């Protein structure tokens, strides 16, 4: 067993130590909002035996090599199980680079890679992959600049299924019949997406935050799907699948020393191209808050989602925002969960989320709540957002949040896939080689002042975009209390008539 995550238990700082057993510092001001529900308070007895030590981690480093055609190869050996996972991360081939009138082109190209090559039909590829004890799939998710091809399988058939993965990556033919079938599935899939409140909320918030920027796009359109031709897919593949923009990450039961020469040989035919990856500049954050209402008649819940644009992944404020997010809403010990679920009983779960990529992503907060408490939930969201801006996070609560982030990071290293994901992130963002080694110390150094500073900088209820998906007949008046309401339809477009109404601004 070569892969062994090296971790030690070290004494944590006194502050964090106290934090592990102290109360969260929950505000006591949030009670009595809804007289119909008796107070159900989170309570800490501090009697459980908690070790004062915390894991310190040193990640195993993958073997890295750049092939002559520019592919960045990373190999992480792990011989515990007879498995290998392979991921091609092809920058420049993702939807961020799509022409504005072709949403879905990058995704269609990726998904049709395994529907036919110069030497294999779609069915042959499916039969062979399944018969080798492997899996193969490719995708290009909206919001991403990359296409991803992933294959995994048993190590004793690795060379065979890797050959199949290589074939679909390098020699796809995009047969017209397969494309027609894809189109006939993709359009009804759009319909299905639009029945999901979470999709509707994401679609609307993305448009509100990003406007004309490509990250605003979260799905294809029926028109863009109809317009696809095999030639367009082949052209996209030709121009955007470039070895010099590709990270090839391999983890599992392989030997790097013997695999690297083979990779040189197997992938030699993939020629460098003139593909340039010019990253489009992101939009500025909104200057005015707005409320969007997606009418979903018959809904018994309101799906709320709100946020501001914040930072790029490489921003020095990233660690402070991670800690802020842990305090605010990342999990079951966070303020939003404890307040809106454990004390108010409004919801099955409310969370906040920090998204940081090569362009500025948002922090968001939201959840699904029964229609009748939409107003109460908005009040509590705003209370928590304002509180984290206006008040310093108490030391014990801050220490608990830092400890949570650091310990969870250490625990995540149990998974080989997670290790390779960290390595890809480091490579993709051009972070220093010891980035992840130092990450826990960066988190541990975050002070209450840092959290408050980034809260004031990035969390702004006055300029926040708010989306509510629900039954407009029941919640429109409520949402008008929180800003100018625009009603949008399931396609994300402004509803045709009487869609605007004016309400009070967010406090």
């Amino acid at each position, binding site marked *: 067993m070569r892969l062994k995550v090296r971790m030690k238990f070290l004494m944590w700082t006194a502050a964090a130590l106290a934090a592990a057993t102290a109360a969260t510092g929950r505000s006591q001001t949030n009670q009595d909002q809804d007289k119909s529900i008796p107070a159900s308070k989170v309570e800490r*007895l501090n009697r459980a*035996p908690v070790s004062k*030590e915390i894991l310190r981690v040193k990640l195993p480093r993958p073997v890295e090599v750049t092939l002559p055609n520019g592919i960045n190869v990373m190999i992480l050996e792990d011989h515990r*199980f007879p498995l290998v996972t392979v991921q091609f991360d092809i920058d420049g081939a993702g939807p961020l680079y799509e022409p504005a009138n072709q949403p879905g082109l990058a995704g269609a190209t990726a998904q049709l890679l395994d529907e036919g090559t110069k030497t294999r039909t779609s069915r042959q590829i*499916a039969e062979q992959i399944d018969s080798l004890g492997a899996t193969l799939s490719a995708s290009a998710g909206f919001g991403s600049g990359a296409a991803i091809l992933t294959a995994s399988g048993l190590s004793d058939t690795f060379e065979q299924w890797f050959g199949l993965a290589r074939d679909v990556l390098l020699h796809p033919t995009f047969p017209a019949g397969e494309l027609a079938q894809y189109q006939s599935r993709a359009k009804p899939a759009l319909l*299905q997406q639009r029945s999901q409140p979470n999709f509707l909320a994401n679609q609307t918030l993305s448009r509100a935050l990003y406007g004309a920027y490509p990250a605003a796009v979260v799905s294809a359109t029926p028109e863009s799907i109809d317009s696809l031709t095999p030639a367009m897919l082949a052209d996209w593949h030709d121009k955007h699948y470039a070895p010099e923009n590709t990270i090839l990450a391999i983890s599992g039961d392989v030997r790097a020393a013997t695999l690297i020469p083979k990779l040189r040989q197997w992938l030699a035919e993939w020629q460098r191209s003139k593909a340039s990856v010019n990253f489009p500049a992101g939009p500025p954050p909104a200057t005015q808050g707005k409320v969007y209402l997606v009418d979903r008649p018959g809904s018994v819940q309101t799906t709320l989602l709100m946020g501001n644009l914040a930072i790029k992944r490489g921003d020095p404020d990233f660690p402070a925002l991670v800690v802020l997010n842990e305090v605010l809403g990342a*999990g079951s010990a966070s303020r939003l969960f404890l307040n809106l679920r454990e004390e108010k009983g409004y919801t*099955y779960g409310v969370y906040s989320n920090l998204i940081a990529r090569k362009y500025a992503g948002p922090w968001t907060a939201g959840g699904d709540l029964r229609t009748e408490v939409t107003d109460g939930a908005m009040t509590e969201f705003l209370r928590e957002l304002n509180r984290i801006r206006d008040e310093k996070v108490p030391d014990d609560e801050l220490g608990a949040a830092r400890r949570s982030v650091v*310990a969870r990071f250490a625990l995540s290293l149990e998974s080989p896939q997670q290790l390779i994901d960290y390595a890809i992130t480091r490579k993709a963002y051009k972070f220093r080689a010891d980035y992840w080694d130092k990450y826990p110390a960066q988190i541990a150094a975050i002070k209450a002042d840092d959290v408050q500073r980034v809260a004031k900088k990035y969390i702004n209820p006055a300029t926040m975009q708010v989306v509510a998906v629900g*039954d407009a007949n029941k919640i429109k008046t409520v949402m008008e209390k929180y800003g100018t309401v625009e009603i949008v339809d399931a396609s994300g477009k402004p509803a045709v008539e009487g869609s605007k109404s004016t309400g009070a601004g967010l406090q």
Partner: protein
Amino acid sequence: MRRFKILCTFGLFLGLGIMTTGIVATPRPEPRPADAAPAPSVQIPIQQLTLKNGLRVVLSEDHAAPTVSLCVTFDVGSRNEQPGHTGFAHLFEHMMFQGSQNVGKGEHLILVRVNGGDVNGTTGDDSTNYYERVPANQLDMALFLESDRMRALRINQANLDNQRNTVQEERRLRIDNQAYGRTGEILEDLAYDNFAYKHSTMGSMADLNAASLADVAQFFKTYYAPNNAVLTLVGDFKTPEALEKIRKYFEDIPAQPASPPVDMTEPVQTAERRTVIEDSFARLPRLDIVYKAVPGNTPDWYALDMLGDILFGGTSSRLYQKLVKGKGVALRVAGGIDLRRGPALFQAFVVLKPGQDAEGVEKLIYEEFEHVKTDGVTAAELEKIRIQNRLQQAKSLTNTLNRARTLGRYAVYFHDPNLINTSLANYSEVQPADIQRVARQYLGEAQRTVVLTIPKPQAAPAR
């Protein structure tokens, strides 16, 4: 083994809690190429014993990473519920996080989270489990938290009301506000006659509203006794030390009289059952066809599981190639048999493309079933399923929490946690003739239940 399941179990949190009834890590014997010696199978070391109070303990050391995964699986699920009390096993699961003698409301979640761990509980038809994965040096904390609530749950009306609200939101989130949300409930209700599986794990709003503190106390006493549970621990510990700690925290919890047995017998179905439901949120028709079959871990179950994979597993499967690719009538097709202690459901599920004739698609499915009954399946098809099983098995074992949960499920369902090491051998026993036989035996017209979910014409949107 590539399980798609229509009927979910329910959990404490979104994201973590959704466990389909069939996500079962079946362990890993080897493919047997005719001309090669069998490859060494992945074997998980297991030590089993029973404490004085009847608590069964299963330990499996793994020192790859300094983490431990603890799972306590109770032999109770919605199958134990009586009419008028549907949804109670799941509501009770939520109450287990509302405080015990030495742990405050919500403190369990906070402590595990603050120390970097994962925590959740899930309730299904056949069992309820509680689990956490924590750094190895927090083993005492995890054992303390689990033992305190097994010993002395502390509950009050406010917390019951609070979690009743939370569970009702879970119902709205997963069922009442989702496309096809009610299909699974209606399907089970129609297919089963025995109340145990006939009613939904999530339960009705009315029954949830009726649940009382006295119900909670009685349920705890009856089902949450150490002699009705299995504790599984996987990860970075030394067995003698871990065992000493487990005895310290658990062995003095008093045993209780055995819980009442559940009658799982299902009368023979003599005619096809069928219904059509309108769904306010669905945009495309969906067809569900199920057949009641046999309990898990029986020879016929393994044969039906392989038949399910031949028909529905992956893009090379017969019905994917026929309905999604060849005829192009379906957006999605999935199916297979679920894993139950009682009669499991062999299921087929198809989302139709717009404008497709549901009756015609249904016939295409039966046509493929008949094809198996008449012409059987090939040895190559079985070999493909075996190697895919081997892959799925190895993948599922990479995660210690998965292993702890699987060991618990096998111990409670089949009294055999070592199935994690032996069950793949059961797939190796299945021959093409067995597949043909079970198709003939279980997939008959009179044995099936069919639910067609169609989009309800939409109301005019508000302005």
